[in-house]
């Protein structure tokens, strides 16, 4: 029975089983839902009326080429799709952004400014003997994380299960893994708690006026991390308030730098569903920036505030939107900006966009490749229920071909 990879969260597990069109998702509800997505609408439309693909691509080309400032957003596509969208953006002088990418860019901004101490899943699964989970239960977004990285029974370099602790709001604590030392702290004090932890790993005493902080538990975590052979800190930037995600990432890096003077400890920023890391990688290699890029002046420019798709739409600084959601079934944001929707067949559109192109879902309708949350590893996707729907790559190429070299 062939095993297949699943692109519906950043873990990209590759041990799902495909038999006669049915997918055994190994107990993962997220994967099961992804592979059970309905076949939905398979026709392309202009202003709500069905048209052939070529006509829809031509209409999309006219709309994008005629815009003063087009925006390509969502970017929920496989690697080939993102590559093709960037070619289209470069030609049309568009701005590109994923959607609500601020959390991901918070981590990347810290890497740009200060760097990182990181590791891939395979290192953590085989080595980590002390693990700190930060902010919220990571298995909500990554259902098989504990099974694959912490409860795996055949780890190469650690005996038994790792010592696991959680620092974050009790309401968001993981229920599905035994916590040696829970360190409950409300979300509003999480960054303070990290600052206290960084002081403790440096061997400093933290004054008692930090009443909201679980100092005793933090002290134990600090000692465990210092004594670990290979510690790991796992967090999702999205678990932090927007202004605090960068501070949190910087504090984690600070803690890691101290610990690595004497032992090993690494960070693993999670997230990366919707091929977010694949999109960031393709943007980096093609344009030198990991997201929120404008090609308007002819050279790539990066600005996390100016090129935020949500802000651009709200401020009406763009006059055409190409919305791309082939992986997660996310409808385009409510906007009066004329929109071309490149969406999977099961995406419900609240209103008829100017142009609607139904694209295949990678791993369902067509093969492809996506990148895991740990960035290094790309996995191939099979077509579990092959169809003739165009891929994002094919649709973007068709639009680009119709724009031609005119601009």
């Amino acid at each position, binding site marked *: 029975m062939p095993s297949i990879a699943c692109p519906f969260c950043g873990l990209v597990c590759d041990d799902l089983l495909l038999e006669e069109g049915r997918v055994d998702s190994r107990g993962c509800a997220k994967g099961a839902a992804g592979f059970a997505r309905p076949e939905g609408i398979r026709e392309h439309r202009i202003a709500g009326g069905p048209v052939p693909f070529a006509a829809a691509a031509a209409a999309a080309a006219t709309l994008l080429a005629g815009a003063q400032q087009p925006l390509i957003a969502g970017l929920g596509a496989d690697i080939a799709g993102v590559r093709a969208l960037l070619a289209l953006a470069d030609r049309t002088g568009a701005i590109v952004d994923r959607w609500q990418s601020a959390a991901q860019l918070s981590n990347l901004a810290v890497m740009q400014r200060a760097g990182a101490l990181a590791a891939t899943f395979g290192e953590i699964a085989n080595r980590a003997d002390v693990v700190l989970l930060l902010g919220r239960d990571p298995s909500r977004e990554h259902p098989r994380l504990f099974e694959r990285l912490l409860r795996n029974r055949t*780890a190469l370099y650690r005996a038994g299960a790792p010592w696991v602790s959680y620092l974050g709001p009790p309401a968001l604590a993981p229920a599905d893994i035994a916590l040696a030392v829970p360190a409950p702290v409300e979300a509003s004090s999480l960054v303070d708690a990290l600052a206290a932890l960084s002081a403790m790993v440096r061997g400093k005493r933290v004054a008692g006026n930090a009443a909201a902080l679980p100092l005793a538990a933090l002290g134990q975590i600090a000692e465990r991390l210092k004594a670990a052979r290979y510690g790991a800190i796992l967090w999702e930037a999205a678990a932090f308030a927007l202004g605090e995600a960068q501070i949190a990432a910087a504090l984690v890096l600070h803690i890691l730098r101290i610990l690595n003077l004497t032992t090993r400890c690494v960070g693993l920023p999670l997230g990366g569903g919707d091929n977010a890391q694949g999109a960031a990688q393709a943007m980096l290699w093609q344009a030198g920036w990991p997201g929120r890029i404008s090609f308007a002046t002819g050279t790539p420019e990066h600005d996390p505030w100016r090129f935020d798709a949500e802000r651009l739409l709200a401020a009406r600084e763009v006059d055409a939107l190409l919305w791309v959601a082939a992986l997660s079934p996310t409808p385009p944001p409510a906007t009066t900006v004329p929109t071309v929707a490149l969406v999977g067949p099961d995406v419900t559109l609240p209103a008829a966009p100017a142009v609607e192109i139904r694209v295949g879902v990678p791993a369902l309708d067509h093969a492809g490749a996506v990148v895991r949350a740990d960035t290094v590893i790309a996995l191939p996707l099979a077509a579990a229920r092959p169809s003739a729907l165009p891929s994002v790559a094919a649709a973007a190429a068709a639009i680009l071909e119709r724009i031609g070299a005119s601009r």
Partner: protein
Amino acid sequence: MITKLAGGVVLDPANGVNGERRDLFMDNGRIVAAPADGRVDRSYDLRGLVAMAGAIDIHSHVSGGKVNLARLLMSEDHRDVTVARGALTRSGGGEATPSSFVTGYRYAAMGYTAAFEPAMVPSNARAAHLEMADLPIIDKGTYVMLGNDELLLRMLAEGAEQERIDDYVAWMMQATAALGVKTVNPGGISAFKFNGRGLDIDQAGPQHGVTPRRIIQALARAVSELGVPHPLHTHCNNLGIPGNIETTLATIAAAEGFPIHLTHAQFHSYGTEGDRHFSSAAARLAEAVNRNRNVTLDVGQIMFGQTVTASADTMAQYRNRVFASPDKWISMDIECDGGCGLVPFHYRDTNFVNALQWAIGLELFLLIADPWRVFLTTDHPNGAPFTAYPTLVRLLMDRGYRNDCLKTLHPAAQKATNLGSIAREYTLEEIAIMTRASPARLLGLADRGQLGIGAAADITVYADDADRERMFRAPRYVFKDGVEVSGESGIAAMPMGATHVVRPEFDKGATGPIKRFFDDHMTVGFAHFPLSPGELADAGIRVLEHACRPRTRA
């Protein structure tokens, strides 16, 4: 369509042609004989110009996860250096860490028609190849990194037969679509994950107790027995450490006569003499290379200015983080098979160590007698961006210029090098050997790096100019597979180059332990780790497979 390149001075050392005036003909991407009827469709007047095969860079970090992390870390580079889109070309930017399209354009504009990514972590192979689909014009290929991968270390610890190691190496090369095998700080990247901060060549590593010497021995032999044309591409232990010449010489011995290529040897040619306990050992390495015919090396010349060091050698990069300029760095442990470390560097001629590194690199070039066994690299971007090559060519060809540069360096460094007394100047033929004929030969690219009938029509045409930097900076014409890709008005066409691979044979029945290892321990299963045969073609990548010699068994 037959194109004639008429009346140029041709340097084609692979075919014994040294500066003869002759016509070249191209048809359908290949070099052909003069048409019997004399008819040509297009003719270029090459009188007064010099024609060579397209240049080939055997070691340049152009693609893959490490390079992408370097782009991320070097955001200033992408803010300060931007390249606008053109009618044919894509936008991009960066000098030390150029974006993929810009990398292809710059290489082509400089007369290069191929560059090889030398450090592909096995688990990063798919992503690296997909990235190379956006590296235009030039040909490319990769060396897969082994020697810190758990399975090989375990096999060595368990005393596996060489034949099984050969099978594993061959399987890995096919799985990752590689052209060669690289080893980086053998055993050291793995040791760093166990909190090891150093590993000498005869020191047993953690967990498995395997020494770097044993790893080098096994891999050099495997590559040779598999008939892979490119020898084991070796980044020695102890990079950058004063006194590491002993490790480098021991590495040559560890190869036990099998072919071995030492990469960025400049970083491995250091002694401990003098007040500052840092000295040139270039003469000792050059002497060893001159004596051992199985050894080749590329230099990894440093040039002064801002760059970033990008290496799989996390152990060395972590040690070197204290030199980061600007002060930021990345270290990443990767999938029980490798790692990557990024540290920005600003090499300064006023710094004693940097100035002496510059001199050590040039000493190596000038003291190794055989131009077929030394290769022109800056280990892009580690010693300098590849755009420094024309300046480096001038330093090799023009002693007056070289000595003028030497006089501007840190005074103590000037005293610590013999460079000023070396009279040698490279000839144009030697440059053609070092940048064309020999790289193609060392990589097994039979139809590249030469201009014989039937060779690929990768041709670079220069205006002969006493200022060799100006000459090599801007060739008059560059042809890739017979298409003019760069001419007097910049990039003229944007074909996609091919990806070169070899596929050494292995015993298909011997993959059981590999399958068990991946399925039991790794986070990508045996079914998905290898690139499938059609996968690269599906991504629009043209794969060119080269022959291996027949496999031999001990």
